[in-house]
């Protein structure tokens, strides 16, 4: 599958367009603006006030694509545009009437001009029913982008460097910091697998290792109560201590049971549920959230992002937009099945059996416009009645660490049964989230216009690197979780107490359940820091690591 452009750069104008702009500037565009009409679905056309249908001035045809000359407003069909340009010197730029798109007659190709698209867009937005539209033409908010960047930098590992000494890297015999097996305490592989991923989420790890969590002054511990954050801090210290013998996270397990009493048992639990519940525990145990604005507990600072949901009325185009925070995104597997019926006579489409699900396919599915069923008619503010509508999700703000959860466990409350979907899903190691951002998705809805949208944060990176994969094997009732960690260009399989280095093919072929991606710059920085070995008086770093091969 072809990747989309990561940078939305404007194409350079051809010399004919540049020439036209020099001579006529925006006057032609402005005159055109009045005649542009947009349908609720977003299609902009040039509609003259004539009662007759537009026809080519040379052949009188009306069936082909028709182009309106920007200078003299004469209409030619695609066969005769060149003729018009030859008759009238300099009449090189025209507009496709049906689509409101610029066309250069001499280049015989579509051309792009942000000024033109801006004018089309403005007209479209002016025509739409007011408020709740979510597309604000005015300059983007500075927002808390700067605050978030500072937050990310705070969680830098610079401080830790002062605590460890620099050592000459002996390559293969030295495993990276923080690689330690975790003993299974009784069907706790669901916990071990998620903990391994959390251990190596760059900003999360840095928070605990740079002593930002000062457990000495923790109020809860001093009054002999359990504190989940302190237990996590102890856990991190133990794993990063340099001691390679498998560790038993018993205290952490107990602490978590206290928090999630309903999940406290020796039964196998869902790793994703554990993940959410741990983050929730951190949030509640941590800094008291302020009433306004975002929460600044480490869980939110690292994992939280914002989703945008647009519901568009199909009759009038009125769009209602809501924003919701998220700590992770749960994705349905894309199966390549189309909802519609007859595809038998298509020679192009491969049979369903050979379709491979991919992460990008799942993300496409997630951000695809979905027609709401007739039982879910949306009450349109503009029409003042319930109408058929289309809903579309997109990502307004990306987190520092993105957790993607693949919904493999299907529950049927009616039939009171659950099953696991074993379908293989292919996933990339480098992920560019740009096409799934609200700015991209909303822009596409308006027909790919060259236009800056509110919240277009071009200097925020959308590139992510994978650092952990939690996989599940077996059935729903009796299964096993294993985590693969990507550290310093090497993959490690973390199967409870056993850690082995593996080839990347093994990881690619695994059945992923949760995928952890970190923002690229954070990932690379974190990996640099793993080079140093702590000077530990207890462990000789060259002793073979117990539990590892």
């Amino acid at each position, binding site marked *: 599958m*072809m990747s989309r452009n990561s940078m939305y750069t404007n194409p350079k104008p051809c010399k004919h367009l540049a020439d036209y702009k020099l001579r006529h500037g925006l006057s032609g565009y402005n005159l055109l603006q009045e005649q542009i009409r947009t*349908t609720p*679905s977003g299609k902009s056309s040039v509609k003259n006030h004539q*009662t007759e*249908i537009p026809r080519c*001035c*040379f*052949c*009188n045809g*009306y*069936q082909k694509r028709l182009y309106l000359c920007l200078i003299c407003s004469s209409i030619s069909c*695609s066969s005769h545009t060149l003729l018009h340009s030859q*008759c*009238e*010197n300099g009449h090189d730029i025209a507009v496709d009437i049906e689509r409101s798109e610029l*066309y250069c007659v001499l*280049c*015989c*190709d*579509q051309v792009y001009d942000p000024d033109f698209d801006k004018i089309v867009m403005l007209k479209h937005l002016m025509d739409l029913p007011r408020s709740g539209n979510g597309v604000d033409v005015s300059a983007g908010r500075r927002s808390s982008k700067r605050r978030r960047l500072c937050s990310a930098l705070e969680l830098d590992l610079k401080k830790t460097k002062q605590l460890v000494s620099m050592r000459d890297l002996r390559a293969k015999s030295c495993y990276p910091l923080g690689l330690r097996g975790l003993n299974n305490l009784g069907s706790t592989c669901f916990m071990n697998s998620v903990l391994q991923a959390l251990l190596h989420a760059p900003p999360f790890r840095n928070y605990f290792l740079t002593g930002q969590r000062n457990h000495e002054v923790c109020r809860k511990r001093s009054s002999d109560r359990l504190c989940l954050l302190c237990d996590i801090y102890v856990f991190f210290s133990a794993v990063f201590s340099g001691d390679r013998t498998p560790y038993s996270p018993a205290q952490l397990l107990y602490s978590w049971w206290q928090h999630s009493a309903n999940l406290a048992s020796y039964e196998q639990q869902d790793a994703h549920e554990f993940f959410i519940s741990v983050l929730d525990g951190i949030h509640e145990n941590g800094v008291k959230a302020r009433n306004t604005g975002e929460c600044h507990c480490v869980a939110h600072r690292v994992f939280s992002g914002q989703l945008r949901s647009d519901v568009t009325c199909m009759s009038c185009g009125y769009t209602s937009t809501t924003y919701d925070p998220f700590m992770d995104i749960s994705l349905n597997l894309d199966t390549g099945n*189309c*909802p*519609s*019926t*007859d*595809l038998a*006579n*298509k*020679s*192009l*489409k491969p049979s369903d059996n050979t379709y491979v699900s991919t992460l990008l396919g799942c993300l496409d599915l997630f951000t695809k416009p979905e027609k709401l069923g007739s039982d879910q008619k949306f009450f349109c503010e503009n029409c003042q009645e319930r109408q058929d509508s289309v809903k579309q999700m997109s990502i307004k703000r990306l987190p520092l660490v993105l957790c993607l959860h693949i919904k493999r466990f299907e529950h049927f409350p009616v039939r009171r049964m659950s099953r696991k979907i074993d379908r293989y899903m292919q996933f990339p190691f480098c992920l560019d989230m740009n096409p799934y951002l609200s700015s991209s998705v909303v822009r596409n809805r308006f027909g790919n216009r060259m236009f800056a949208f509110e919240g277009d944060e071009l200097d925020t990176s959308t590139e992510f690197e994978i650092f952990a994969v939690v996989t599940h094997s077996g059935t729903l009732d009796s299964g096993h979780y294993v985590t693969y960690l990507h550290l310093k260009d090497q993959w490690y399989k973390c199967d409870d107490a056993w850690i082995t280095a593996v080839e990347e093919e093994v990881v690619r072929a695994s059945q992923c359940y949760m995928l952890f991606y970190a923002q690229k710059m954070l990932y690379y920085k974190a990996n640099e820091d793993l080079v140093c070995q702590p000077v530990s008086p207890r462990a000789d770093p060259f002793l073979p690591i117990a539990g590892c091969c």
Partner: protein
Amino acid sequence: MRNSVNRPPTPDAVEDQEKEPTLQEIINIKMIESGEKEKLMELLRERLVECGWKDEMKALCRAYIKKKGTNNVTVDDLVHVITPKGRASIPDSIKTELLLRIRAFLASAAL
């Protein structure tokens, strides 16, 4: 100053109007004037997106552009290459649905 004297004469549209408009043309014009054509086009677009036809055409375009190189392809090129494949791969159910709608329109417009 443009020399209007050197311009070739505007082609004579009078002759074309003497020909009787065919039935097809009459229907087409009636449909456009009443706005029915617009509605049918919207319906068609919706159906083609639903059944994945649009995505396939997009994939075909991408493949063609990849083969030729981004700078060597124009929109006209793409249209010429894709059109026959596109026309051939429209599902029958969609054709049937649209024909029924057109027939209904004709009945209501008493043609």
